[in-house]
């Protein structure tokens, strides 16, 4: 008899002795204990009542299944009945096997099945003096999501067990490191040139949960650098495509997606749900919001960005006394001053390298691998491989303006107070009908390629501040290609006291998608 019920304390040493076999190289035990609370109520003790004959027959069956399924040497289980106090052992499971992996998995199988199938009820005694019979709740059975270990070579969907042996072999990683990765939650903002390699490597490494944020749909011009996708994916939402690729690469990774960019109203809360964030967008506004959200939520952030053949990498650890993005460049620069992949061009491997470096930094942080502790900005030029590592002096940054937290709080509050700047229209005719005057902020060359064909004022974005008086009249809708220049210009004009200036969200490219 491998399974038994006991109305007295279990002798675990004796149980363990019973599972010793000369062919066993590993032993794994699980103990379930009575804890002091359940669903918010303080528990004093509990009482187990079993339908003994049925419980014993079913228990035997579960153990036999585990032995058969995982090929382990032996397994045993004792379940308590009667009165138990907080801290008492309620259930003991032991498995011995030739190798540890099967022992762990069989042990997990047994406890999940016992919780699910055994006709045992428990009555909880609360500190308040009352009692309740607790209903059997559905448990997640981990083994329903893994393959029959005897059939590893069948690669049917849902029947794959990841093999991390190559990284677990590293002394600094090991099983303990792998467990840390499996428990980790990482948010990747942007599933483009930087995000693609970052997401691939993190999924492959077995990160427990990946959050993916991207509001864009895949375009043909993305494919030279965005290696998660192929031609069939054009027009689809990148966050959803990336989630599908992760599921195909490592089905054990849980994925959460956001198909809208984060904003000042939700970024801090979402950052709090993760252990670590990678900022992989090509959007300066998103980079500043991420830095602020990292500081305010205390979540480490790995920033990277590229320009043509070079890039920058900064790790914001978000610990008191460490620098943020604003410590280097306090204010978000104007989009036209910064350049982008669209305007300046980029060679595919450049974001590929930097996204890979972001994944590397994430793994180093999670695994506590050796890394330089001194905060720094890393510059790397991929034409001549010059690397410049510039230490950041915290005293020269936000410290002069009340510290990173105060600066970030102010910045987020300002953006939130200006949330009415952004307006959405499906057609520009609707904006005109709503009483807006259209102001086109694009350069003459862009306008020539795609004219608005509606009455509008043309003011290149870099010159808006010279046209404040003109723009102050009436309700004004600023328009550019992507909504970045118009958003930035609108915020500058608001700071000049122009309360009726708005920006078309997503710019003209958003109109194309909607129509």
């Amino acid at each position, binding site marked *: 008899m491998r399974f038994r019920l006991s109305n007295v304390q279990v002798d675990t040493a004796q149980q363990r002795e019973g599972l010793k076999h000369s062919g066993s190289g590993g032993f794994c035990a699980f103990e379930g204990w009575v804890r002091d609370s359940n669903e918010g109520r303080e528990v004093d003790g509990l009482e187990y009542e079993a339908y003994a004959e049925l419980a014993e027959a079913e228990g035997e069956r579960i153990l036999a299944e585990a032995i058969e399924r995982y090929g382990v040497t032996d397994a045993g289980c004792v379940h308590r009945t009667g009165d138990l106090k907080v801290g008492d052992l309620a259930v003991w499971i032991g498995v011995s096997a030739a190798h540890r992996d099967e022992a762990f998995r069989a042990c997990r199988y047994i406890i999940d099945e016992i919780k699910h199938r055994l006709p045992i009820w428990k009555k909880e005694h609360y500190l308040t003096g009352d009692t309740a019979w607790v209903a059997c709740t559905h448990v997640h059975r981990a083994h329903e999501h893994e393959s029959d270990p005897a059939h590893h070579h069948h690669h049917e969907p849902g029947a794959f067990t990841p093999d991390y042996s190559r990284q677990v072999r590293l002394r600094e990683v090991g099983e303990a490191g792998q467990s840390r990765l499996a428990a980790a939650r990482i948010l990747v903002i942007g599933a483009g*040139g930087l995000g693609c390699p970052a997401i691939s490597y993190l999924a492959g490494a077995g990160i427990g949960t990946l959050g993916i944020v991207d509001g864009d749909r895949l375009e043909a011009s993305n494919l030279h650098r965005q290696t998660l996708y192929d031609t069939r994916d054009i027009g689809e939402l990148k966050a959803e495509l990336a989630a599908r690729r992760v599921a195909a690469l490592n089905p054990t990774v849980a994925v959460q997606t956001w198909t809208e960019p984060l904003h000042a109203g939700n970024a801090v809360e979402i950052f709090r749900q993760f252990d670590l964030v990678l900022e992989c967008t090509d959007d300066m506004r998103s980079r500043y919001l991420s830095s602020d959200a990292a500081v305010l939520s205390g979540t480490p952030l790995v920033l990277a*960005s590229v*320009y043509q053949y070079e890039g*920058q990498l900064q790790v914001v650890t978000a610990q008191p006394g460490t620098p943020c993005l604003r410590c*280097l460049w306090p204010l978000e*620069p104007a989009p036209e001053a910064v*350049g982008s992949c669209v305007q300046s061009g980029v060679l595919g491997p450049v974001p590929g390298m930097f996204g890979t470096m972001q994944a590397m930094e994430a793994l180093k942080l999670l695994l506590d691998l050796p890394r330089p502790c001194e905060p720094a900005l890393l510059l790397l030029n991929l034409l001549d491989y010059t690397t410049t590592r510039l230490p*950041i002096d915290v005293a020269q940054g936000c410290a002069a303006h009340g510290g990173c937290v105060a600066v970030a709080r102010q910045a987020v509050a300002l953006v939130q107070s200006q949330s009415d700047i952004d307006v959405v229209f499906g057609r520009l005719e609707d904006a005109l009908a709503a009483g807006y005057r259209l102001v086109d902020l694009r350069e003459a060359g862009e306008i020539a390629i795609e004219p608005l064909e509606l009455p509008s004022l043309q003011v290149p974005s870099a010159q808006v501040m010279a046209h404040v008086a003109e723009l102050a009249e009436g309700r004004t809708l600023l328009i550019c290609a992507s909504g970045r220049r118009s958003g930035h210009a609108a915020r500058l004009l608001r700071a000049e006291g122009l309360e009726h200036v708005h920006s078309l969200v997503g710019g003209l490219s958003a109109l194309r998608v909607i129509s």
Partner: protein
Amino acid sequence: MTVVNLQYYAQLREQAGSSGEQVQTAATSVRELYDELRARHGFSLAADALKVAVNAQFSAWDRPLREGDTIVFIPPVAGG
């Protein structure tokens, strides 16, 4: 006159048409030097939008120039 070595990153590299140069300058501070270079190369970014590092350390803009300094001008970049 002071001889200093310059390195340019991102937009500055593109606008200067090279990743670095050695210049002889009459400027006395890093800021004066940048203003001089901005006029020469037509840099679009003002000094306030940049970080500057001298001899591999971030530096204040009013730092005096010394013979042989290596000066790096770094704009924020956003590509991804």
